[in-house]
């Protein structure tokens, strides 16, 4: 949603704007009609020969400005509001990154792991400073690389250290992330809003099933956003054999839907970075409706002033 998208808190009042066409019709009619206050002038044809063909557009400048101002005032009456991005005060995001062997696949350049690191760092940059972050990696088992913290250096260091290892214990990774959130909440003594950003490129093959962890996340009211990395039908040469390394889209989507998060699929480095950046603004900011009536009314006032000046300067009257 662009920041200029307007909504009206009292949309019903916009019906008032229906009067404007009436005003326009009146003005046009007035222009067409013979002027009753015309002055008698007997040498008119001589004057017509030397006079320019009416002052043209100049005559309508001030009327048009008044019309615009009235339109704005009508809009202001309906209390316009716009969506503003407000940085979330206290919130935590746990980045859960798959470091299975398949992250070595080179269908993303230079490989999936490097792309995931770059995107994660971009995410760290795009969230407001108030946000607390943590990093969890999972392979055969899951590990908490950085606890929930505001210290970006710690987080960046943890992301830099990510290296592909072996299996895909997706459920374990989620569980560690949720444990960390639970710990942080307990330490704070309040339920800080938290979410999990899970990146994976394969099928969970170790530890508890991801669905089980998803149930816990739902209970804790932690939405899990999932990102599937890799092109369709990608393979990896391992021990002289070509192993298919496909994303388990079904599981990732199910986890996201169950917890109130969202699933994204990314087939190349660029879109992966875009997805992370977008998530950064979704998770880092709240969209808030702010009433902008005063601003709109003020603008209308300025335009009215302009209309008065234009009328005085250009045509010597205010229509």
């Amino acid at each position, binding site marked *: 949603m662009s920041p200029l998208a307007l909504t009206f808190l009292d949309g019903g009042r916009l019906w008032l704007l229906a009067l404007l066409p009436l005003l326009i019709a009146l003005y046009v009619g007035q222009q067409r009609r013979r002027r009753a206050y015309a002055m008698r002038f007997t040498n008119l*044809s001589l004057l017509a020969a030397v006079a320019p063909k009416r002052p043209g557009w100049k005559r309508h400048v001030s009327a048009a400005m008044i019309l615009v101002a009235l339109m704005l005032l009508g809009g202001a009456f309906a209390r316009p509001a716009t969506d503003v991005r407000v940085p979330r005060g206290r919130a935590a995001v746990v980045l859960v990154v798959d470091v299975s062997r398949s992250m070595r696949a080179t269908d993303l350049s230079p490989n999936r792991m490097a792309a995931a690191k770059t995107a994660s760092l971009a995410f760290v940059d795009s969230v407001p400073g108030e946000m607390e972050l943590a990093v969890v990696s999972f392979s055969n088992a899951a590990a908490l690389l950085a606890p929930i913290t505001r210290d970006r250096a710690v987080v960046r260091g943890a992301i830099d250290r990510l290296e592909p290892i072996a299996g895909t214990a997706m459920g374990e990774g989620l569980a560690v992330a949720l444990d960390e959130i639970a710990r942080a909440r307990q330490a704070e003594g309040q339920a800080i809003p938290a979410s999990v950003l899970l990146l994976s490129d394969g099928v969970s093959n170790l530890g508890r099933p991801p669905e089980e962890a998803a149930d816990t996340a739902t209970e804790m009211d932690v939405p899990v956003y999932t990102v599937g990395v890799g092109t369709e039908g990608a393979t990896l040469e391992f021990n002289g054999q070509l192993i298919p390394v496909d994303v388990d889209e079904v599981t990732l989507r199910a986890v996201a839907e169950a917890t109130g998060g969202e699933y994204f699929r990314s087939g190349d480095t660029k879109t992966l970075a875009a997805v992370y950046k977008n998530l950064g603004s979704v998770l880092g900011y709240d969209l808030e409706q702010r009433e902008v009536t005063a601003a709109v009314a003020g603008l209308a006032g300025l335009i009215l002033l302009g209309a008065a000046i234009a009328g005085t300067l250009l045509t010597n009257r205010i229509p």
Partner: protein
Amino acid sequence: MRHLSAVAAVADDPVVVPGADRLLRGADLWLARRVDGHGPGRHRSIRLGEGLELADIREYTPGDDVRTIDWNVTARTGRPHVRVYDADRDVTVLVVADRSASMGFGTANATKDRLARELVAAVAAMVVRRGDRIGGLLFDEERAGGMRAASGRRAALRLLHAMEAAPPKDRTAARMDLALTDAGRMAKRRSVVLAISDWIDAGAWEEPLRLLAYRHEVIAAEIRDPREDTLPDVGTVVLEDPETGRQLEVDTGIAGLREAFETAAAQQRAARAASFARARASHLIVSTDRDWRADLIKYLTLRKKGRR
């Protein structure tokens, strides 16, 4: 007393109305003051047209009055010639008055119509004093009234009243060309034709004027108003031509436009004067912002000098 006489006059002649009467009386008084102080007689002082008209110069025949011999011609030709005059005949003045909408305009001391009527009253007063004849032809888009030439105060009043009864009407354009043609048809005898108009957009009048001036003595009286020559700086205004109803919105704040209009108006006036000269009509100019009486006297004096 005046009231009684007015009632009596109305009873006597329904065309006579106090307005015309007062106009004529005022003109007469002015003329009396102006004229009777100078010169020996009323007749010789101020008048339009010549009473004595040269009919011919022919060879002397026995019996002719030797006093009428024209010595100049006699010397040139070597044979005696005499000047033959028509009897001291009365002059006929035919007033052709523009009654179109533009005559109802006036921004200074009076409307052009008022000026026209005062002018006619002055001329009528002169005519009445001399016992000459006066007639009239009123015109806007077509003939709006008229009366045959007749002598006497009543004829003068009838003409003035006719003008009063046919005030300038809105949405009527002047057709002085038709009026002048009509005047030529109406005037049987050689007359003095006083054509009063503003001559603005009055049709193609130069040719009819020339034809009329061929036989008659034509005085083209031009009634001006200062507003026809200059534009005031009053911003954007809507102007309307009373004759056509055409409207025009102009920004008078543009100095260039005001200058252009003034230049064009000056050219228009010059072109008009040139037309009168080509048509051999003499040109009398009065304006709503000047003393028309002074203009009239000046005109008559100059004309008299020009004759001699």
